[in-house]
């Protein structure tokens, strides 16, 4: 049995279920207890689980991330929240030098089962310090897993998996997705890490996209279908581990790949995926892999400039058209 609930509700359900299942799961962050979080993801938790397991913190992003490391090492399962992924810039030492490396540095004799929940992306006029997409930093940090759900279903299933995982997980939600709805089973389920989801099948071009961009890619695919181009939309859901096989399988079918991400293009994770696909499926490619990505600029406040800074449906459509044309047609 499924019903439609919002992304933020799906996350909320995952928190409830996991906290009921395991008394060592607890959560804290700025305004998450009394207020239930800026996006209402932690609503109701304080009432059910009380102030030892649901805590408001001061504005202290380093210790918010860092205390989770210590608490995880001693066997609890913290779910810490950083309000905006932009503020993880304040937590980087704790995430990169402590959380990610701890298990390795102590020779595997201590594990770090923590989840850092945060959210990113633009689209609300919040300008340069509240609109970034920073997953590439975390993907480049061995020891961290990186999760970016695009739907309510994935959000719930992946958060449950993240909480049960024994390694540090950076769980990045999208501020524009919280109030979008999606089908979610009544029954308990989890979504495994490292398993891409083909959100739409198609034969002419593969679009790899994650988080909000999945929805833009799907919209683009509908437009393309109208002109006879069938795009396959692959959502990796977790960037580390990455289901590169699923991506290559799709590319071997379509022979063309377009990667879409909201993060700025230079140094974005799309480059890594492009390089990996090339290493594995060079001979299968009928056209250069293209990336549709954020512009290399801090995010502007003005609405039109903000829109111009990140991929729009039309950009994806045009790029897919070019990629398909290049292969079928001229030169």
């Amino acid at each position, binding site marked *: 049995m499924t019903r439609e609930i919002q992304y933020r509700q799906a996350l909320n359900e995952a928190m409830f279920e996991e906290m009921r299942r395991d008394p060592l799961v607890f959560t804290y962050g700025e305004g998450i207890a009394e207020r239930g979080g800026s996006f209402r993801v932690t609503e109701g938790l304080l009432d059910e689980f009380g102030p030892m397991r649901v805590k408001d913190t*001061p504005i202290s992003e380093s210790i918010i991330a860092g205390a989770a490391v210590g608490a995880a090492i001693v066997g609890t399962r913290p779910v810490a929240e950083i309000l905006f992924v932009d503020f993880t810039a304040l937590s980087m030492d704790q995430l990169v030098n402590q959380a990610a490396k701890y298990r390795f540095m102590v020779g595997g004799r201590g594990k770090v089962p923590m989840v850092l929940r945060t959210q990113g992306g633009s689209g609300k006029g919040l300008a340069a*310090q509240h609109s970034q997409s920073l997953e590439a930093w975390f993907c480049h940090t061995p020891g961290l897993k990186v999760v970016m759900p695009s739907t309510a279903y994935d959000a719930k299933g992946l958060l449950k998996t993240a909480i049960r995982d024994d390694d540090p997980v950076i769980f990045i939600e999208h501020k524009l997705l919280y109030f979008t709805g999606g089908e979610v089973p009544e029954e308990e389920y989890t979504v495994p890490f490292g398993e891409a989801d083909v959100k739409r099948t198609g034969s002419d071009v593969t679009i790899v996209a994650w988080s909000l961009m999945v929805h833009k890619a799907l919209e683009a695919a509908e437009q393309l279908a109208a002109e006879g181009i069938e795009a396959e939309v692959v959502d990796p859901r977790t960037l580390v581990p990455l289901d590169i096989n699923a991506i290559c399988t799709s590319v071997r079918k379509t022979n063309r790949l377009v990667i879409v991400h909201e993060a700025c293009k230079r140094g974005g994770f799309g480059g890594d995926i492009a390089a990996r696909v090339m290493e594995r499926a060079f001979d299968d490619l009928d056209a250069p892999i293209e990336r549709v990505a954020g512009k290399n600029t801090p995010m502007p406040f003005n*609405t039109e400039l903000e829109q111009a800074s990140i991929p729009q449906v039309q950009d994806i459509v045009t790029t897919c058209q070019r990629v398909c044309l290049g292969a079928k047609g001229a030169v």
Partner: protein
Amino acid sequence: MATTPLTKSKIAKSKLLQMYRRMALIRRFEEESIKLYRLDKIRGYFHPYIGQEAIAVGSCGAARDDDYIVSTHRGHGHCIAKGADVKLMLAELYGRKTGYCLGRGGSMHIANVAEGNLGANGIVGGGMSLAVGAALGSLLKEDGKVAINFISDGGVSIGIFHEAINLAAIWKLPVVFVIENNFYAVSTPISQSVSIETLARRADAYNIPGTCIDGNDVILVHEEMSKAIDRARSGDGPSIIEMQTYRHTGHHCNDPGKYRDPKVVEAWMGKDPITRLAQHLGAEHGVAEGDLTAIRDEIKQEIKDAIQFAEDSPSPSVDEFLAGIPDYSFEQND
């Protein structure tokens, strides 16, 4: 309703009237802008300064025009207090090309660099480095400038607070740290975030002066700031001044602020800094209500003109923006 009278002082009536004008301008600016926000003319986060006007105005009033200020996410008040043109501010809030930041910054990044406001900041505590760094630069240039660093109560628990004040203390940098304690970080009361009675006690850790004052008494703010600024300018290093105040609104335009006890809110409304200055001007300087009304009428017009200016201003050109990206990313966008 009678409110606590302001500190008696020798500040000239003309100066007090000027401060009254600035405070009233901030108030009006915020009130009108909130309306525009509700009309979707302004978007993004908008943190009103209503209720805290005495702090910005008293502090900037005590500084030299060429001193620096560094602001917070709640930055409109500081910007106006430092002499900004409300036209250019409102244009910025509208995201227009004519705004202080060409429409790229918006409310959370409002700045007026040319006149010494190094800017608001979307990162709580993020501006402390700018103030400390500006003070360091001034020391090197020997230009005698002081930096005033507005910080919020939520900001006293973040790491850079510690690093910034410690550095300023050991290097005796010309900076004054103003903690605007409005008792809440969004919904979290400050009492849940610190284990001290007054935030000024943080100063003990750096062996610098730390005082806690009524931040709704613009005269007291002015006097304490004058001392701290003098001290900073003469090479004796930084101070912390905690100024207790209250925001009349929610945290931002979309926050009803229900987490606060209505009785407490009401009590603070009774300590409104503008009303108190008005009463002081009447009682101590014989300023007639009509004179203040005249000022407020002027301000009404000023804001009206500013709205018109913002409305009439062009949006930044997307093509120019895209063409300009190499300026910021230093190469073709690929």
